[in-house]
């Protein structure tokens, strides 16, 4: 496949890509540290993945194979349009198979299939600053990062337990990267937090509106914050996926009618489809 005429490879001009790559290199060198970068206008609105798309454009090459997911699904509007965007402007091959992809851009999920060395996972980040709810001043949050002054972050978790009896934060759960920087993992469910720890793939985070890039290099410890007597836990369900029968993946609740009917299905569509195929093959 060749790219559309009139566009530079992967939409962004080479100078911009170089600038973003410099930011990415710095981010990889200091795991969890938010590197400012000159975010560009992209042909999609803020909040739809302008940060992720710029990071992807900067790291993707002609030989790469791209997968884009939105809430775990390959077939939602955001995923389809970003995948088509790169298919047109970069002419790269695309896939829905997690294992076959070299670059995966994601919104709100980490694929269920374990990632491997050489893969790059690009997250779309709405608000990169984990301390923002606590401290509205940017000068102060930067100082807190510089001094690793993160104790007050537990106030949020304390508040959860005081109100709900458990840590009720379910997504965008704060993590400590490499024992140093506090990081917002973008709005992934906390179910996915353990997958970030010592992951063999390179994880890049791009926030377009806030103009920040940060990264978790391969095999970096990522620890979710918790209390000694209220340890970190991931979500669990008492149902299995209604489509594939899986019990080990993150489930979405889907309302099926207006009489209270609802089912639970895997949020990772590729994972669900693979399991269903395997079940079918076994039956045949």
């Amino acid at each position, binding site marked *: 496949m060749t790219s559309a005429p009139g566009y530079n490879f992967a939409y962004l001009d080479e100078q911009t890509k170089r600038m973003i790559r410099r930011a990415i290199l710095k981010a990889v060198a200091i795991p969890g540290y938010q590197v400012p970068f000159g975010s560009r206008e992209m042909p999609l609105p803020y909040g739809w993945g302008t940060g992720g798309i710029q990071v992807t454009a900067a790291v993707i090459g002609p030989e790469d194979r791209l997968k884009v997911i939105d809430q775990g699904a390959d077939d939602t509007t955001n995923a389809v349009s970003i995948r088509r965007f790169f298919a047109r402007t970069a002419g790269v091959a695309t896939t829905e198979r997690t294992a076959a992809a070299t670059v995966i851009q994601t919104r709100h999920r980490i694929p269920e299939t374990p990632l491997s060395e050489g893969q790059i996972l690009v997250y779309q980040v709405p608000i990169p600053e984990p301390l923002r709810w606590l401290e509205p001043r940017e000068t102060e949050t930067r100082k807190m990062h510089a*001094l690793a002054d993160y104790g007050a972050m537990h*106030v949020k978790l*304390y*508040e959860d337990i*005081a*109100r709900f009896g458990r840590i009720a934060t379910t997504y965008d759960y704060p993590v400590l990267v490499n024992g140093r920087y506090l990081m917002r993992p973008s709005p992934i469910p906390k179910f996915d937090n353990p997958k970030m720890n010592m992951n063999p793939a390179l994880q890049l985070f791009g926030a377009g509106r806030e103009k920040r890039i940060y990264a978790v290099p391969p095999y970096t410890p990522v620890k979710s914050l918790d209390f000694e007597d*209220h340890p970190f836990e991931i979500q669990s369900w008492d149902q299995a996926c209604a489509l594939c029968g899986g019990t080990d993946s993150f489930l979405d609740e889907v309302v099926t009618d207006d009489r209270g009917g609802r089912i639970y299905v895997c949020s990772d569509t590729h994972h669900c489809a693979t399991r269903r195929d395997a079940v079918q093959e076994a039956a045949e």
Partner: protein
Amino acid sequence: MNPLLTVSGLTRMYGNRVGCRDVSFELWPGGVMGIVGESGSGKSTLLSCLSARLEPTAGRVLYDTREDGPVDIYAMGEPRRRMLMRTDWGIVHQNPRDGLRMGVSAGANVGERLMAVGARHYGEIRAQADDWLRKVEIDGERIDDLPLTFSGGMLQRLQIARNLVTHPRLVFMDEPTGGLDVSVQARLLDLLRRLVTDLGLAAIIVTHDLAVARLLAHRLMVMRRGEVVETGLTDQVLDDPHHPYTQLLVSSVLQP
């Protein structure tokens, strides 16, 4: 034994205008120093300079740290100063809304300092918060209520609990009873006096209310136009004022 706080030649200028000029004094452990004066006399500027929130133009503030003895608070590194501010020191603001986190519960407000210095056991943090709420006479049942639902006097007491939870040795108070009605003031003063005595706290209290100063402070500094005009034991200064300004200040108090 060293003085807890040694202040020498402390000056803070705002351009050509004087915030406070050439203030020197010593504060010993367990001592309570009152700073009185009319509004605009530099009391709050002085307090900010003393409590490491406003860098002075000249002069030094030495604090007797537990580990290394007297250290200049503006020469030590930022992390150390922050640590000091949330362990060894307490700062009680005039408006409790400045010193509290209004969006989180009373318990979290009290526990924040503990978590900031590394407490990671929810049950223990909560038990301590509960204990301190009781000590400042706030009903333990209100531990999960937001400070927004508290009255002015309760907010001020909550702020005090939040500051004392790490067992500080030195507390800075800026008009702790400002904006409270007299009966609440009286109870707060009783509470403060008891806590200061029981815990052996040293305190620096800024106030324009001479009655508060007489009740709480051992020593008094009278400020006018940024300079200390008179200093001495509280009773001595209030009963036998020497400086004309102090005489004016003392005679201005209404006798009911």
